[in-house]
């Protein structure tokens, strides 16, 4: 049915694109970028933030990277791995994109990386942070490149920071899926390496709304609580924790307190500490300008989902400009990407041999303050400490790190749980 339809209209469409292509090449090169984000479903808002970030940079550059006209094609991956694969193939086979960007969930990243290998098309992951894509599975995916982060990257310095605060025992409560394991696992490794003890690990399922069964089981003798929550969970958990009269410090993975959810949170999160490679409250001229421009354009604070895609666009622009406004081919493109150094809103970003960013990791405390000249007191992630130029292995040696298994529900083992 679709076949018949395409046969009839196919030539017309094809003719149209060829004609467009011809007129475009007559003026300047066309750079076709495929972009995958969940624009419908539970993650639609995050997906919109992702696209907005990338588009904002494109708009600033009047849709031109180094003289090349950018054709930016967005496809809805719906937060489902196999839909993402179909859409990526559509972008590659039908739209003939030069490379593709995006993908939200870790599972989506794992699904898209093999597509890049099979089709020999570069995939730039700006959000999806599954650790192993740039660690143990790296040799399998030679066309995979990451501009965002790997899940445990901010957790390694954070574990050290927790030791520095004098915490001895910490309880972990984290969403029961790969991202939760990796963020919590990285923290556990680092925290126990400097003498701390993880005394319990609780894994509520991904869509938990009622934490009633979990909160009372949090151990009394722990000095702090480490959380990794996502989506609606990150709103519910702090509320219910406060309602239960919690007095302990709460620390956690970055996306739990990302600016994407922060404005919807109440005062109960004030004082909570989290970590990530970006904070809207980062007081650098570059970031202040970014936050102001973003707020004027979209009427809200930029979170890391927008920033990382803005920066990704900036990185691509840098490479294409250096290549003379032309796509240099997959192998050359990867080499040039790896050599890029940019000064992004999140700070300086460069890349190591694992095709993963080396960047600042910020320890951030939620506070209700006035910032950047905005008139009202709002919740901001204020930066309280910066760990400069952190790679994904942090304080650990790469070889020793790679010899251990990827973080999971059971790794690192909970030695001090009983």
């Amino acid at each position: 049915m679709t076949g018949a339809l395409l046969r009839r209209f196919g030539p017309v469409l094809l003719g149209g694109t060829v004609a467009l292509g011809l007129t475009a090449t007559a003026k300047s090169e066309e750079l076709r970028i495929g972009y995958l984000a969940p624009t419908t479903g539970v993650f639609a808002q995050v997906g919109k933030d992702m696209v907005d970030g990338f588009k904002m940079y494109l708009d600033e550059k009047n849709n031109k990277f180094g003289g090349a006209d950018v054709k930016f094609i967005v496809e809805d991956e719906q937060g489902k791995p196999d839909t993402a694969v179909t859409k990526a193939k559509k972008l590659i086979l039908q739209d003939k994109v030069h490379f593709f960007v995006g993908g939200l969930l870790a599972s989506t990243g794992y699904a898209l990386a093999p597509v890049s290998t099979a089709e020999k098309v570069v995939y730039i992951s700006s959000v999806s942070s599954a650790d192993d894509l740039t660690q143990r599975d790296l040799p399998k995916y030679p066309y995979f490149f990451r501009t965002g982060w790997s899940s445990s990257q901010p957790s390694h310095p954070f574990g050290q920071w927790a030791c520095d605060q004098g915490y001895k025992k910490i309880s972990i409560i984290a969403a029961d899926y790969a991202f939760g394991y990796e963020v919590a696992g990285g923290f556990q490794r680092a925290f126990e390496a400097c003498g701390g003890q993880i005394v319990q690990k609780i894994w509520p399922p991904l869509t938990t709304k009622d934490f009633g069964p979990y909160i009372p089981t949090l151990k009394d003798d722990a000095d702090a609580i480490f959380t990794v929550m996502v989506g609606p969970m990150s709103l519910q958990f702090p509320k219910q924790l406060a309602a239960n009269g919690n007095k302990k410090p709460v620390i956690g993975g970055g996306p739990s307190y990302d600016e994407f959810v922060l404005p919807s949170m109440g005062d109960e999160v004030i004082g909570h500490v989290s970590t990530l490679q970006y904070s809207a409250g980062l007081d650098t001229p570059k970031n202040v300008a970014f936050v102001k421009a973003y707020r004027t354009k979209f009427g809200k604070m930029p979170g890391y989902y927008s920033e990382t895609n803005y920066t990704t666009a900036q990185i691509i622009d840098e490479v294409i400009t250096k290549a003379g406004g032309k796509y240099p081919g997959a192998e050359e493109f990867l080499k040039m990407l790896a050599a890029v150094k940019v000064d992004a809103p999140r700070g300086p970003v460069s890349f190591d041999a694992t095709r993963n960013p080396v960047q600042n990791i910020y320890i951030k405390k939620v506070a209700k303050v006035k910032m950047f000249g905005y008139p009202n007191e709002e919740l901001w992630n204020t930066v309280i400490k910066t760990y400069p130029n952190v790679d994904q292995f942090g304080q650990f040696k790469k070889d020793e790190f790679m010899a251990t298994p990827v973080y999971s529900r059971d790794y690192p083992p909970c030695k001090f749980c009983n």
Partner: protein
Amino acid sequence: MRSHTWKILMVIVALAAVAVVVPNTNSFIILLVTRALAFSILVMSLDILLGYTGLASLGQAAYLGVGAYATAILATKYHIGLGWDFWLVLLIGIVLGAALAAIFGLLAIRASGVYFLMITLALGQCVWGLAYRWNSLTGGDNGINLRERPKFGGIDLANEMTFFFLVFGVFVVSLLFMYTLVRSPFGRSLAGIRERELRMKILGYNTWLHKYIAFVIAGAFGGLSGVLWAHTAGIVSPVNVELPTSVDALLMAVLGGSGTLVGGVIGTFIVFGLREFLSTLVPWWQYVLGIVYVATILYLPTGLMGIPERLRQRRAKSGEQGTAKILAPATS
């Protein structure tokens, strides 16, 4: 009878058209049609339950999942199913689907109507739970990547066209098998159960057994479609076994027209087409899909396959009205 031969001819022509036209389109269309064909085996299997036996199941994705996970686990952990033994895996998928249905059937078949719906939903969610939580086996939320497709003899299924013809072949065989099944005396007895189970019981049929066998056969085809499905996207994840996948299958069957087998296939193609092309064009594509569903239920309860019949009725009706109009002035 003549109209029946005509219908079969139409299906054959349509199949031939797909086999000829699709390979000449671009490779993305080939991929899409391959996916739709693999999924439509599941939809047809559901139609055996929904359209012929009158049992609306909300857990059909479980069988697709079992087939798909078996394929992925065997291939990645044991390197089984990447050569000639692909056919063995196809068989394993069928057997596992049937076996799971045989277990679930014992629990589900005792109920009917909305209770059957709820039990199958619950059982389907059990399979989803296993897929999601049994990390060591299923890879949890990340799922399992299948990096290669089978290769045997001179045939390399990594080629989209070759793979399309394989799926097409399996699809045609499945269609034939299911068609024969629903037209057999066994299939007739299923229709009898759908229309009035009590009467069938009084006539001496073991209706429980009939329903149970239909349930197991549907599960077997679900497993089969799962094996193919796993290789279409190269990824198997809990999304494949979650509730929306079961609901999708049900909606596709209803959209095309349940109790027709072919209707389910048409429904599948329409939904796949709308999803892939509309979602590229507009961000609110889901509303369009929703309106299509609602409109179908409201105006075409018999699905798209019911259109010719409705047209015929309408023509007959307007004929009557025509005569009535002519008569009306005479009487006044």
